[in-house]
């Protein structure tokens, strides 16, 4: 039966995709340092150990600083670019927008090595700031993708109606455009923050002596006894990511409903 094959394929595909992630919480609560079945017993000790690790706390703080900065900066850049591309026509618009979106498909390691070369060349010391730069580069295309949908679903007459009713371009933007794209902006902030939080390659190359959370996690795998702690941390991160992305998608859909636009598909 044809339907049976498709069903089987789908189930297999989903297992392949999500089984490793499901193993994460299973072993995070398992009372053994070795990652193997059968399970030994239930414990929350690994989560407790997360509290006592100052290096982890430092890496987390770094990641939060980088994540918030990258989210705000790339969302601002995203607003400019999507407003420009949806509202105005200018020469070389299509290739320009293409170039801006390119980091989306370019291998991160290429970007990271290129950035590192440039930074070393101009003598800029590696720090959290350089990681933020790298993350802005990676996050901006995502922000544009989200915000373009928000800006393009706006009826251009809305802005003209605001001028017509006595508003200046600035106040029209504040009173009409901004409230209508706000859900998109929130969605963009959350998604770029999540991307930055999970990003490894840029951070690995550009952080210098500093650590971010993913770099710290990578480092901890050298110590087998720490692996369950890392799985506990991973569990928290997965939950956090899902929560953030779900919130982002909620705001994206609410924005579309508000403007009466068509859903052209988001990231979820």
């Amino acid at each position, binding site marked *: 039966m044809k339907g049976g094959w498709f069903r089987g394929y789908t189930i297999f595909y989903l297992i392949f995709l999500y089984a490793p992630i499901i193993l994460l919480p299973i072993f995070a609560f398992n009372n053994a340092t070795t990652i193997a079945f059968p399970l030994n017993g239930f414990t929350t000790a690994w989560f407790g150990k997360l509290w006592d690790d100052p290096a982890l706390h430092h890496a987390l703080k770094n990641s939060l600083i980088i994540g918030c900065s990258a989210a705000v900066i790339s969302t601002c850049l995203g607003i400019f670019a999507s407003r420009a591309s949806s509202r105005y026509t200018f020469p070389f618009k299509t290739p320009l927008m293409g170039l801006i979106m390119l980091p989306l498909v370019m291998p991160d390691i290429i970007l990271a090595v290129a950035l590192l070369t440039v930074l070393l060349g101009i003598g800029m010391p590696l720090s959290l700031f350089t990681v933020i730069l790298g993350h802005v580069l990676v996050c901006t295309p995502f922000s544009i993708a989200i915000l373009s949908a928000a800006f393009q679903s706006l009826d251009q*007459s809305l802005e003209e109606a605001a001028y017509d009713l006595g508003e200046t371009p600035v106040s029209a933007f504040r009173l009409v455009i901004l409230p209508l794209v706000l859900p998109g902006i929130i969605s963009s902030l959350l998604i770029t923050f999540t991307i930055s939080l999970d990003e490894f390659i840029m951070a690995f190359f550009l952080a210098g002596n500093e650590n971010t959370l993913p770099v710290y996690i990578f480092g901890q795998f050298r110590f087998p006894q720490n692996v369950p702690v890392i799985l506990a941390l991973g569990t928290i991160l997965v939950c956090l990511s899902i929560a953030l992305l779900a919130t982002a998608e909620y705001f994206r859909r609410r924005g579309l409903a508000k403007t009466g636009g068509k859903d052209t598909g988001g990231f979820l």
Partner: protein
Amino acid sequence: MTSEKSTAADQTMIEFKDVHKYYGDYHALRGITATIKAGEFFSLLGPSGCGKTTLLRTIAGFEGISSGVVMIDGKDMANVPANVRPTNMVFQSYAIFPHLTVEQNVGFGLRKDPRSAAEKAKAVAEALEMVGLKGYGARAAHALSGGQRQRVALARALILKPKVLLLDEPLSALDKKMREQMQMELIKLQRQVGITFILVTHDQEEALVMSDRIAVMFEGEIAQLADPETLYRRPNSRKVADFIGTMNFLPADILSEVDGKVEVEAKGFGRLTLDAEQVSVAPGSSSASIGFRPETLTILFDGQTATDRESKAEVVEVVYYGDMTYYDIKLEGTTEPMRLSMRNVFGRPVLDIGTQTRVAWSPGALVLFR
């Protein structure tokens, strides 16, 4: 926005002087010169791409002009931005702010109004009542139907008491019944508020029904500017005649021309003399033709006689509409069928295809195009 001048009936409200508009190489407006009177219901009528919306947008200030002058109430609008012009617009998409309530939409333009909040709320309530949306104030704008959005857009524009209300195809998104109802309401509303209304439409019937005067536009130019009756009865070119209603054309030969009176010979009609006002001269056309509307020809049933002239004809097609019957007839000696309409008054028969009949007509109803 107070003016010392009184808006008397014949005062000019809007004046276009040789207005040109280019988009790159595209010549969208080609020397528009026209005046629109205060308190008039004026329509810009034409097929899509004729420049009617562009012209409307030059009044609103959304579109700059390449050369020429646009004056509103005696003031040159050259450097006046849209947000301070004494005009308000009802957009084709209505452009209702979806994140605001009906009340907030209608009161949007009052933000900088120095009146107290209570007075503004009263003005909003009055505006809503005027457009028949009393009690809808607290509703969310995105939950309204098309007709209701239209009314909100009207209230939002009229609350500011503009000198000119601009309407960009406001009825095109409504269904037929709703459209006809809104046409009547708009006419009433215009008489009530006395503001100059300028309507853009591609629907000739809508323009005829609603307007005091109509400018018919083709390819960036005004082809004819006249009241609806003149436009319908005396179109100044075949193109205008074709665009407004249905008009039949018969080839004609011009025999002589004396003091503006033209003697012509047309197959089916014979020899005729037409007054100067029945003659339209369009530049560039070489052949002449006689034009007439379907309702200006009447079928003569057995025993009836024509009061003026009559011709022999054969019925080649019959379309029954209930209140009307449309016939295609061939006048004796012609090959092209002509459209003729008869009101189905009680007791009047509907003829069959192939019937030989007679038709009555009057030379006064004819127009000569050349």
